[in-house]
């Protein structure tokens, strides 16, 4: 009996130990699940961080890319065509005949060149001639000539449009620190008669400081110095381009040389002792140039109108440009 009780006691102990072992094993399983869940959560967090970091890197990449859609190339094409066709018009005009047909055929000859050049860059570019406006090119018959050669001083009347008004002076009236009256009476002047007022640009040499001066007088006011350049060799004045140049220096006169209102008439005043050449292109529709024999009037092209197109995957730009080189 005692023996049986001992065996039962041992069995109970063994069961108890087994239960303890099972309990510990269950706890270990729970710990593993905990680690698993925590690891999963951390993995999700790390992946999200990686994604955000990736997005940030992509953002930096995008931020440093060229983002504009070919706009500068389209503007550049238009600029190149305006400049090229402008030079073409001036070349035809100064060759002496200024035929519209010649300008038109030259523009048509440019069409395949433009198309081919741009096609290399994967874009479609087109140029086609639309219209040309007839003009007249004015200048001295014998170059150089004194600027008082026109008898009634009027170079052109009934003017609608004018461009490329340039002078090349071989000699100018020389004054010594002149006052307003001296300038008005002695200096060579180009007078623009506009519907509202007269604007005169006086051009002379100032002996006192060795400069060529352009003085501006509006209406009845005293002339005021607008632009000066040091005297050196031939003096070139571009009244529509607002520039004065000598052999050594070029000076920009900042929109001061052409009147703000378009002139109806242009006169040369005080032309004695001022010698040189000039060119002026006027619109032939209404302009009445002087019939003085000292002035040569030849046919010219005043302006050309061209259709320009530029097309890429992101941009379509179509415009019709009027090209009148040297128009103020």
């Amino acid at each position, binding site marked *: 009996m005692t023996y049986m009780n001992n065996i039962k006691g041992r069995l109970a102990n063994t069961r108890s130990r087994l239960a303890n072992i099972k309990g510990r094993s269950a706890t270990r399983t729970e710990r593993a699940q*905990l680690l698993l869940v925590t690891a999963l959560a951390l993995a999700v967090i790390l992946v999200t961080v990686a994604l955000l970091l990736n997005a940030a890197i992509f*953002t930096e990449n995008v931020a440093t890319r060229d983002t504009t859609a070919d706009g500068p190339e389209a503007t550049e094409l*238009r600029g190149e065509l305006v400049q090229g066709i402008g030079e073409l018009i001036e070349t035809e005009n100064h060759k002496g005949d200024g035929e519209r047909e010649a300008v038109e055929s030259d523009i048509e000859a440019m069409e395949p060149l433009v198309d081919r050049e741009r096609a290399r860059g994967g874009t479609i570019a087109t140029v086609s001639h639309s219209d040309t406006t007839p003009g007249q090119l004015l200048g001295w018959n014998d170059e150089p000539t004194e600027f008082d050669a026109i008898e009634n001083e009027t170079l052109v009347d009934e003017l609608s449009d004018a461009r490329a008004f340039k002078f090349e002076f071989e000699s100018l009236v020389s004054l010594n620190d002149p006052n307003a009256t001296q300038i008005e009476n002695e200096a060579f002047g180009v007078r623009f008669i506009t519907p509202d007022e007269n604007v005169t640009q006086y051009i002379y040499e100032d002996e006192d400081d060795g400069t060529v001066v352009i003085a501006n007088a509006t209406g009845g006011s005293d002339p005021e110095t607008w632009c000066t350049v040091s005297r050196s060799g031939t003096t070139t004045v571009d009244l529509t381009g607002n520039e004065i140049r000598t052999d050594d220096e070029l000076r920009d006169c900042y929109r001061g040389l052409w009147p703000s209102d378009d002139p109806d008439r242009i006169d040369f005043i005080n032309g004695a002792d001022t010698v040189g050449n000039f060119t002026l292109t006027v619109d032939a529709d209404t302009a009445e140039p002087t019939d003085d024999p000292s002035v040569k009037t030849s046919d010219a092209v005043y302006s050309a109108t061209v259709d320009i197109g530029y097309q890429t995957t992101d*941009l*379509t730009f179509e*415009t*019709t440009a009027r090209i009148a080189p040297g128009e103020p």
Partner: protein
Amino acid sequence: MIRRLREDRRAVSVTVGYILMLSVAALLLGVVLTGAGGLMESQSKQVVSDELTVVGNQLASNIQEADRLATIAAADAEATDEEGSVDLTVRLPDRVAGTGYLVEIDDETITLSTTNPDVEVTVTHPETDRELADSDRLSGGDIRFVYNTSDDLLEVES
């Protein structure tokens, strides 16, 4: 005394072990997720804000580009009485940091916004020479600027 406590097996059971273990696990997960969640949200907002700023700046530069071309076309049209046009498409992402966004373009500002996370970015751009047409809020993605000299209005479409 200590020996008595060590040998005391009362209240030691699998059930109590489970309860304690689950409590500790829940507490740990809660702390980790709360801490990391806040960090993630702030980082996510920052990334969205950065991307919207970049998109806004791209849009601003393209508005200026479209305006520049429109001004040239308008000047040419005035000189020739012929029509001109500009059609410019800006390639923008559909989503930023995985979320969609809205764009609103006004005279001098571009407002970009997302709802999740709630972020709003405003980018300024110089006033355009050509008048900018009123537009509704546009969803993110490609945006077109269309100009015709006959209307003289820079229109925005998505």
